[in-house]
């Protein structure tokens, strides 16, 4: 029996066309999210220094993008997605500040950031000597620490431009500021990192 039994021919064609469009949109969004999810996780992780929290933030951003912006042109998805994610990271820091204040009030330890260990969150090395592995891990730890110490806007600009590869205009959309501000924040971030890492990096 036809899937359109009980419907008029026009409404049936409309239903099928809408269904095909939704399916195509779903495929495109799936491809986009699959492409960005791992980098987004690491960017969020550097932002909050906690993998579980970062996973929650990335999932939240994916859901919000699908719910609110799936119909937007797919070239707008990356800046929108990172804007949602960065807002999530900022909100997370605000909540942490309040939480820490409450914890200090009750005489408990204020932050668990010291417990964060990047090596514990990475897969086993593949085909590398232990020395190379150790050097890579130490370099990444130093880099993460240096990025964490940057002011928030500089950190965002650096990670979006360098790690995600967004251009200035897309970074500006993601950060909710002007192109000029992005250039300034990025330039300051690179100089600060050069000062911090200069001794360790050739």
């Amino acid at each position, binding site marked *: 029996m036809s899937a359109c039994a009980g419907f008029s021919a026009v409404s049936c064609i409309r239903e099928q066309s809408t269904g095909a469009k939704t399916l195509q949109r779903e495929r495109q969004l799936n491809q986009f*999210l699959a492409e960005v999810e791992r980098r987004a*996780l690491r960017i969020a992780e550097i932002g909050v220094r906690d993998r579980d929290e970062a996973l929650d933030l990335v999932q939240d951003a994916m859901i919000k993008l699908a719910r609110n912006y799936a119909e937007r042109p797919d070239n707008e998805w990356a800046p929108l997605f990172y804007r949602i994610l960065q807002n999530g990271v900022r909100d997370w820091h605000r909540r942490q500040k309040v939480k820490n204040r409450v914890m200090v009030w009750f005489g408990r330890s204020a932050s668990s950031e010291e417990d964060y260990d990047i090596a514990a969150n990475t897969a086993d*090395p593949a085909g590398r000597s232990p020395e190379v592995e150790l050097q890579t891990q130490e370099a990444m730890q130093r880099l993460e620490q240096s990025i964490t110490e940057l002011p928030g806007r500089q950190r965002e600009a650096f990670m979006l431009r360098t*790690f995600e590869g967004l251009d200035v205009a897309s970074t500006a959309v993601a950060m909710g500021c002007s192109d000029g501000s992005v250039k300034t924040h990025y330039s300051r971030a*690179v100089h600060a990192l050069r000062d911090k890492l200069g001794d360790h990096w050739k």
Partner: protein
Amino acid sequence: MNDPGKDEQIAGQAKELFDDSVERIDAATLSRLNQGRHQALAELQRPAAVVRWGRWIPVTGVAAAAVVTAIVMRGPAGIDVIEAPAAASDFEMLLEMDGLEMFEDLEFYTLLDAVDADTNGNNG
């Protein structure tokens, strides 16, 4: 002092390390990312009206709670409380799932009634 070459080198090295750390994300984390992505894609299957009206659920919930609180705070204030007649509670019961199933078996209950009437008639 500005040195574009050195800046690019720093950014390049940072990107290399970052990409390396992305490649080394463990399988359990990748699986959780995958689950999260499918949960997000499920949002596309939800009818737009549900999503649109769903946003108002918390607002309407709060508004309803406020109205109920206001009524409770004010009390009966001279208004006679009318108890719902028995028929109303019966109707409520019929609207439940069990009630709907009972409607499906209506023919059976009609037969039972007829049998009862016959039995009573023969006995009486």
